[in-house]
Every structure is written in C-alpha cells, then in structure tokens.
C-alpha cells in the first residue's frame, strides 16, 4: 500500500498543473451563468480545441489514435487536476470519456480511423442514445428498432435524456434488431449520423430550468451496416462497456469538485449568521459540516481503492455502482447542509443581487436532485450491488 504518486505520476501532474495554470480562461464561470446554451457550448468547444492543441485530450487513449497513452492513474490525475484548476468541461465529453473508449474496444480499424481523431479535436460532437420513455432502469426493454433492408438498416424510435443532442453530429445509439430474441440478446449498438434525414431533436427542459438534455426522434433513418459497432445483436455487451466507463471514470474528479464547493461553504459559514452566531460556531451545523467532510473524504478514498484495483489489471466492474450511490447521495445531503448554513439566502437564484455566489448554491441544490436518477437510479444501482456483487437472486 502506497498512496503517494510515483515519480512518473508526479511529473505528469506537475506538467499538467503548470499548463492549466497558464491556460484556464479566467472568470469563465461567472460569464457562463448568463450565457445562452449556444454560447456556453462555444466556450466548451474553444476549451477542448485548446486542450487538444497542447495534447491534453484523450490522455488515456493509445497514442496510435491520437491519445497520450497515459496509465489509468494518470488519467485520474488528469481529471482531478482539471477539476482542481476549475477548468471547463470538454465539449465532446461523452466521446472522449465513454464512446471513444468503446470504439477502441469494439470498433473495426476502419471505424477507429474514421471517428476517433475527430472526437479528440471536437470536429465531430457526439451524443448517446440509450434511455427511452419506456426504457429507463430497464434499459434492455428499449423499443427503438432497426430493420435490415439490403445492406442498410432503417431506424425508428424515440430517445430521451440525450445530453448535447442539439449540438451532436453523431450518436452512439442502442436499438433493437431482433424483436424475437430475449431482450438482452436482440440489441445492436449503432453509430448514427445526426444529420441524416429523419432525425429530429427537441430540447427537454429540466427542473433547474435549463436544457442540458434533449429528446431525439428517429423516423425511417437510414444507417449502412458499416455503422454497427461490434456484432449485430451483441449491443448489450457493447453498451454495458460504455456504462461501466460512465460509473467508474466520470466520477473520478467529483471529489475535487465537492471539496472545492466544501471549502467555499466553510468560508461562507464564517460570515453567515445562524442562530445568533456565525454558522461555523453553531454546534449543530458544525456536526453537519464535519459529516459532509467525512462523507466526501470517504468517497474519495473508496474511489482511490477502486481505481487501484482496475489499474492492477481489472476492468471496470459492478463495484462502480457503489461509487455512484456514494457520490450521488452524499451530494444531496451536502447540498442540504449548504442550504442550512446559508439559511434564507440559500433559496436565492441567479439574477438576485442578494444571492450568495451569484445563486450557485440554489442551482446546485436543485441540480443535485437529479444525481440519484441520472446514470442509473440509486435503486437500480442497489439491485446491481445485490445481484452482481453480493450474489443475491435477481429480483426482476
């Protein structure tokens, strides 16, 4: 057991840290709050292009496909440092983090040459079409279908919760190709051109008021057989690989984000008066603030253990569900603690001159509510832990 970074990991970190210090756009977060969706996306796009020019996108991808060939641990250092520097996310987040690695695992050489480089330089933006109105937790029940006509598939169906659907050029789409087969065995993973005739995108407005997500409709959309990733009717296995990446690596920098918010909340706790004294001196709030620290720290450490295991030769497994439950539920509790520290001011949103931190706390309070639903509900994660980790009989 050695929790220190190796000399190689330290060199990687220091080089990146220096680059970020010189390149992260100053004050972007404040501007971001008042920008339109399109302006926001433009900012993220510019940031990814800057990262790419300096060789900092797809750090874990093999160098043959334009990546940096970094170890998993270096990838984690990358995510942590980017979060620590308060840098914007990359515009093509899903492509770089999830879909690209899936193509690297399952794609033909031709597919790799065609798609991967343009993911990294953000020339082609990707979205992911998995969830449907009637297939959320029971993802394998999805009904969007692809029928083969000659050597072309005809796609019909309706996807929801598609991040960046309006900006996407391509979609990683999970569809049913064999309605007669058991539900997990009749699915196929497609790479679909979002500019094809028959694709319609509509914004989905969420409870925070923004539209991070869209609905995507496919009406007789034509996709050649060469757009299948992996084998026809093996889409479940290909799709699971994407979900595992989602649960294991996308969370790697969350503890840094939580810690940054936590440190800010502690500062506020010294200035906000609660129960006749600074919130930081109130014994009940001290207990709650300490508990949030304990939970953030325990999540960070559990994540480090999981990464060490995967790094030592494993592939991401169902343990990712443990991390997903830990971070999503602790964040909801943390946001409630923050609201108690801020008192009446906690409810003020962006646009109020009285709102602390331009209304960020009211936003994160609302946004955290989605955490235990997105990327697999807490209930489905506990089913996965119960069945795949503890070996209990499947409940459904």
């Amino acid at each position, binding site marked *: *057991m*050695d*929790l*220190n*970074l*190796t000399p190689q*990991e330290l060199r990687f970190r220091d080089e990146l840290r220096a680059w970020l210090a010189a390149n992260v756009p100053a004050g972007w977060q404040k501007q971001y709050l008042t920008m339109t969706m399109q302006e926001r996306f433009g900012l993220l796009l510019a940031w990814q292009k800057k990262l790419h020019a300096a060789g900092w996108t797809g750090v874990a991808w093999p160098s043959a496909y334009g990546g940096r060939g970094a170890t998993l*641990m270096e990838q984690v250092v990358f995510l942590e440092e980017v979060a620590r520097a308060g840098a914007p996310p990359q515009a093509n987040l899903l492509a770089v983090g999830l879909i690209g690695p899936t193509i690297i695992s399952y794609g033909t050489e031709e597919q790799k040459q065609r798609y991967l480089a343009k993911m990294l330089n953000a020339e082609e933006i990707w979205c992911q079409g998995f969830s449907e109105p009637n297939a959320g937790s029971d993802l394998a029940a999805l009904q969007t279908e692809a029928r083969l006509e000659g050597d072309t598939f005809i796609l019909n169906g309706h996807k929801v919760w598609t991040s960046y659907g309006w900006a996407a050029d391509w979609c990683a789409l999970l569809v049913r190709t064999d309605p007669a087969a058991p539900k997990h065995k009749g699915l196929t993973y497609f790479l679909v051109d979002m500019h094809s005739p028959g694709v319609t995108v509509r914004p989905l407005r969420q409870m925070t008021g923004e539209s991070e997500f869209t609905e995507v409709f496919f009406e007789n959309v034509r996709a050649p057989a060469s757009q299948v990733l992996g084998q026809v009717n093996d889409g479940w296995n290909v799709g699971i690989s994407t979900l595992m990446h989602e649960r294991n690596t996308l969370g790697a920098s969350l503890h840094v984000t939580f810690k940054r918010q936590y440190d800010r909340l*502690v500062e506020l*706790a*010294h200035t906000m008066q609660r129960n006749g004294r600074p919130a*930081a001196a109130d014994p009940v709030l*001290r*207990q709650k*603030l*300490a*508990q949030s*620290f*304990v*939970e953030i*720290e*325990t*999540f960070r*450490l*559990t994540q*480090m*253990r999981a*990464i*060490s*295991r995967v*790094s*030592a030769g494993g592939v991401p497994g169902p343990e990712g569900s*443990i991390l997903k*439950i*830990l971070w999503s539920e602790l964040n909801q509790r943390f946001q409630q603690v923050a609201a108690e520290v801020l008192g009446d001011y906690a409810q003020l949103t962006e646009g109020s001159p009285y709102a602390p931190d331009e209304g960020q706390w009211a936003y994160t309070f609302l946004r955290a509510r989605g955490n235990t639903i997105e990327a697999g509900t807490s*209930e489905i*994660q*506990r*089913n996965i*832990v*119960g*069945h795949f*980790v*503890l*070996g*209990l*009989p*499947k*409940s459904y």
Partner: protein
Amino acid sequence: MHFDLSESQQLLKNTARKFWQAECPLAEARRRMEAPGACDAALWKKIAEQGWTGVLFPEEFDGLGLGMVEMAVLMEEMGRALAPVPYLATVLMAGTLLDRAGTPAQKRRWLGPICRGEARATVALLEAAASWDPDGVSLAADKSAPGFTVNGAKLFVANAEEADSLICGARIDGELALLVIDRRSKGLTVEPMPAIDLTRQLYAVKLDHVEVPAENILATGAAARQALDAMLETATAGLAAEMVGGMQRVLEISVEYAKTRKQFGKPIGQFQAVQHMCADMLLAAEGSRSAAYYAAWAIESGAPQAALAVSVAKAYAGDAYRETGNRGIQVHGGMGFTWENDVHLYYRRAKASDLLFGDSSYHREKVARLVVDHD
C-alpha cells in the same frame, strides 16, 4: 499510487483469517463470553507465537517491527472473529504508550514481555466524567517517599481483570503523567462494569492509597500528552479496522441468510427491500474500510493529516457499524432477535466500539476543529 494490500499484507490477512477460524470460531467466542474471567492463556500464547503481540514494536524488544497497515489487517480479522482476547488493550494501548514514552529500561521491563506474550496490560484513562480527551484526567498522584501514592478510581478500563499491569493517566502537581501500576499492588481492586458488549469486558479500577515506585513513571507533561495522543491515534485507527471486520462478517452472515430463508415461496434476498439493506451494509463496510486503511497508512507514513484521517475513519465507522448491525438483525427478522443468533454479538460490539475512544459526534467535532475552524 496503489491503495490496496501488498502481497505480504494479503498473506498476513489470510493467515489471520485461518488462525481465528481454527483457534476460536464464533461458538468458542460465545462460550468464553458466557463464562467470563481470565484470558485463555493457551490462546494468548498462540497469538504471541505468531508474533502478533509485537507487530508494531522494534525487534530489540522482541517485536516484529511491522507497520500500521499490518496491524490494521490483524485488527480487521480479530473484529471479524470477535476474538475474545485483550489485544487492543495490551498491544495497541499499553504497548504503544510504552513504545512511545518508555525509557529503554522500561521497555525491557514491560514492552518486551508484551511482545513475547508473557504479559498483558491495559490503559486506565477515563474517570467519572468519561472523557476521552486527556485534559479530562484529574486523578492525583501525590509524592510520598520513595515514590507516589494514588487514591481514586478509573472507569471503563478494558480487560483490567486479565492485565498484569495498568498504565494510568494521572496528575503530579497538576501536570499530566503516565504511571505503570502493577495489577497486584496493595489497595488496587478491579470490579466488572457489566455492559452491552459481552466480548470485551470493562472494569472499574479502585485505587485505595496505591503506592507507585518512582521508576514506574513513564512520562510527564508534554511528553505524556504526546504519547497519549499518539496512542489514541494508533488505537483508534486499529479499532476502526476491527470494526470493518465486524461489519464484513455481519454482511456475510446476513447475505447467506437472505439466500436461504424463504417466505412467500422465494428466498427473501430476492425481495428488493431486503436486497437493498444488504447493499447498504456493503456500502457501509467498504466506505469504512477505505477510511480505516487510509488512517493506518497516514499514521505510518507520517502524513500531516493523520489526526484528521483517524477522526474521519472513526466517525464513519461508528455510524456504519451500528447501521450494519441494525440492518443485519432486521434481515434476520425474528431469528435476529434471539440470543442464539450471532448477529446481536456484533450489534453489541458495534455500540461499544462506537463509544470507545470517542463516538461519532466526538470525532465529528474533532473534524470540525481541523477543517471548519480557521487558525
């Protein structure tokens, strides 16, 4: 960065697992629990033969000179087995104080025998106010040629009955001091304090004008305080690891039961209400394990945040073990509420372990002092 047991640490864990399965299965721990009394000398000798009584201490005093992570591995397995031995009191508490504060002569006299398994010991810190903060020590040791006289009482002293010596926190002219007191000293009596954990007994130690020779003073003032703080850090990290072992066992027993117990024609583990309780037990055990091993590593590597890591681990494990015991009994239904079922032994241990070295609220306040208060 590698946050996992090394091969040799994993080997030690497997050895300890097999040792406790063979030497003291739960039925045996239960037998000893129902007939409390002196520690089983034969079992203690076997532990010493493994070298475990000297795991943390230098070889010149017959210790193994291993690290905190190895200690945590041993504690985890003892927690799993509910090992009915005074290991925490003798090795982590008394042993660490002797190691930190003793002169070479004192270490030869008291630490060597602990390492070799020839002696057992404990630490008497708490008094009527039941505070784990060393500032709370008020028992006076008065100068009286040729040494000191101690008159008063210590409470919540673990395994005092089977100890050969007690290291006692006291005040000499108002200054904190650590005294080694022979268990057989004239005027020293030990009374059980019957409590909910049946596998780790607590005692009240009455000191009626007990005379302590000057050479038994281990440390005074700042040195005594530093040794006590270091001991509490080490023992608390070890206890957190022990609690992880208990949680893991409760989880396994409960999952096994959920797979076999049938109601409505199905194993109850097929019902999501039961499955999700089991998943929550795993979350509690895994989170506690991460925090406990990190605390052990932080102490071993001299990390500046070691005290914070220890309080994080104890605050988390205290709540997590109680909740795990709670869910374990709930999964067992009526069976879980019977004396014959083993889960209540862990449920009892969970509550007692939460209190030992300060409960979750106590450690959250320590965390708050370190991360909320500005210097």
